[in-house]
């Protein structure tokens, strides 16, 4: 039974086309030319309870609009959206009690008051039982290290500190689903790692469903088993991250370092049954590229390990950025 169901979702915005120059601006005062932008256009997907789904796409593709419809901020132009059986914008109170939301660009906390006061207000708003509340704060503190931040007003926090507090705040009421819109934007590596660990832990411990939008594809790689890809308001890929990688780019590179020098002819002879390319910078370092659909990487590695004195061996997949870039390029060409 899916926890989120989206059927033929459309969200249009009316934008007026600005005419260029000052003269154009004056003309716009009297008569505006409106155009309808389909921010989200006939989108379908469903998400099961407990999934961590990565939602990716370029700027303006419709990611945030989808999230805003799912969270009940925006009213869809047409189509059906059900989250735990509720219509988000209609049954707003019931709906938002069950979800947590983090917008990386904008805090959900109260700007002028201390973090702890914000948390206390949330405890009142969501009517969280005191014992649960304290237990969760304690638990979140262990991963996110919140204690030293609790007395500080939100506006004095650094971006990373603020994000840790925002994440904790969004999960205090134990929501079934959490929407994270760019949770790692602008953060340094250590905080990113910390936040990913936290998301993983919440998902495992409480079974919280996570919908994550991000520009940092390493977030997706580390957290998500499933990817939704959107472009120009349409879903262009929905499936496993691995299948996406293999489907788009089956090329692999094997990096080999040997203890003794190896000759090209010797290596070519050893690997003569496999369709592959070999390159080397020196007789100790080799780079072997092949297509994973033609060559079984495990067999290849086994052969190399049993025939040569190997110091180091490693298999490289193409970086996900490269894959995503190719998907979008392929679409543009169409």
């Amino acid at each position, binding site marked *: 039974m899916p926890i989120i169901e989206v059927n033929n979702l459309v969200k249009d915005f009316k934008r007026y086309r600005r005419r260029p120059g000052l003269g154009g601006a004056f003309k716009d005062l009297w008569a505006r030319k409106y155009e309808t932008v389909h921010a989200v256009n006939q989108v379908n997907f469903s998400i099961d309870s407990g999934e961590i789904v990565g939602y990716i796409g370029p700027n303006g593709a419709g990611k945030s609009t989808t999230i805003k419809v799912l969270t009940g901020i925006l009213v869809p132009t047409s189509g059906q959206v059900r989250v735990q059986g509720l219509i988000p914008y209609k049954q707003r109170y019931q709906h938002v009690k069950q979800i947590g939301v983090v917008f990386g660009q904008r805090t*959900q906390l109260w700007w002028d008051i201390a973090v702890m006061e914000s948390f206390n207000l949330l405890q009142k708003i969501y009517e969280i039982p005191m014992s649960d509340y304290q237990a969760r704060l304690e638990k979140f503190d262990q991963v996110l290290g919140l204690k030293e931040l609790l007395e500080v007003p939100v506006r004095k926090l650094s971006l990373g500190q603020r994000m840790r507090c925002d994440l904790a705040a969004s999960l205090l009421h134990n929501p079934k689903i959490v929407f994270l819109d760019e949770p790692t934007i602008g953060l340094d590596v250590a905080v990113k790692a910390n936040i990913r660990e936290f998301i993983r832990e919440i998902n495992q411990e409480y079974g919280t469903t996570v919908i994550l939008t991000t520009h940092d594809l390493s977030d997706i790689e580390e957290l998500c088993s499933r990817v939704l890809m959107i472009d120009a308001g349409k879903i262009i890929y929905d499936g496993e991250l691995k299948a996406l990688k293999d489907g788009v780019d089956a090329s692999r590179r094997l990096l080999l370092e040997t203890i003794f020098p190896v000759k090209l002819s010797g290596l070519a002879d050893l690997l003569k049954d496999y369709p592959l390319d070999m390159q080397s910078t020196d007789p100790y370092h080799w780079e072997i590229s092949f297509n994973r659909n033609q060559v079984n990487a495990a067999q290849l590695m086994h052969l190399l390990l049993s025939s040569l004195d190997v110091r180091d061996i490693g298999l490289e997949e193409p970086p996900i950025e490269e894959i995503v870039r190719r998907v979008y390029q392929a679409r543009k060409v169409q």
Partner: protein
Amino acid sequence: MSSYQHIISSLYMRRTLFYINLAWANVSNSLKSRLAYREDFWAGFIANFMTQMIGVLFVAALFGRVPHVKGWYRYEIFYIYGFSQLTLGLFFLFFSNLFEVSERYIVEGWFDRVLLRPLDSFFQVIIERIHFEEISNILVGLVIMLYSLHHLKISLSPSQHLMILGMALSACLIYLGVFTAAVSATFWFNDRGSLVSVLHLMQNFSGYPVTIYGPKLKFILSWIIPYAFTAFYPAVQVLRPSKYVLYAWLTPAIGLLFFGLGMFTWKQGVKAYESTGS
């Protein structure tokens, strides 16, 4: 009362208490953060007080030279002015965050956050800021009223005190309704609150007898943007009980009407909210 009705009414009670509790938590938080910056708090308080005084001096200078204007005695005019300061003070004390709504919440998209909490959206916006400095406005208004009444040799019965309080609160509802409706327009037009600033400027008309304006303006201030009901008509009820008596008693009704209108436009506006696009 049937048990069904009983459950409904106790749920309703519970919800009301819940909101009161939250409102209180917010007020105390907001006061705490305000007091944390002592200098800023006092500077704001003094600046506000001085703005008041300039207004008072202006009225005193203008009407102090003449014993009466269009049949209104100097101290009657002072009383009306004082009443208007009282209601403006009450309004801005609790509802000044309304003036942030167009720009900060709607155009810049802070309203997203409001819609993500399981609370009434209007309640959240209002409660976010209490403008404590306005207490000086209220005090100045009350002092002017007492001073004028003293000169007019009018003494008030306890029931009249209560009535004045009721009138002031009704007047507050009128302002609340008018500004809520104006602010809600931003949900559709995405302007930065131009209508709001016009209505804000027009509040200056509220402190004087409407009979000194031309008939057109008098009509507008009575029946379209009913600022005359925020000070003049209720004040006259004390000054000259025989005159405009019906008008004075219309004040609560007009307050409720405009409050309802404001809430209705707000509700419709929230549905049209477009956030900041994608």
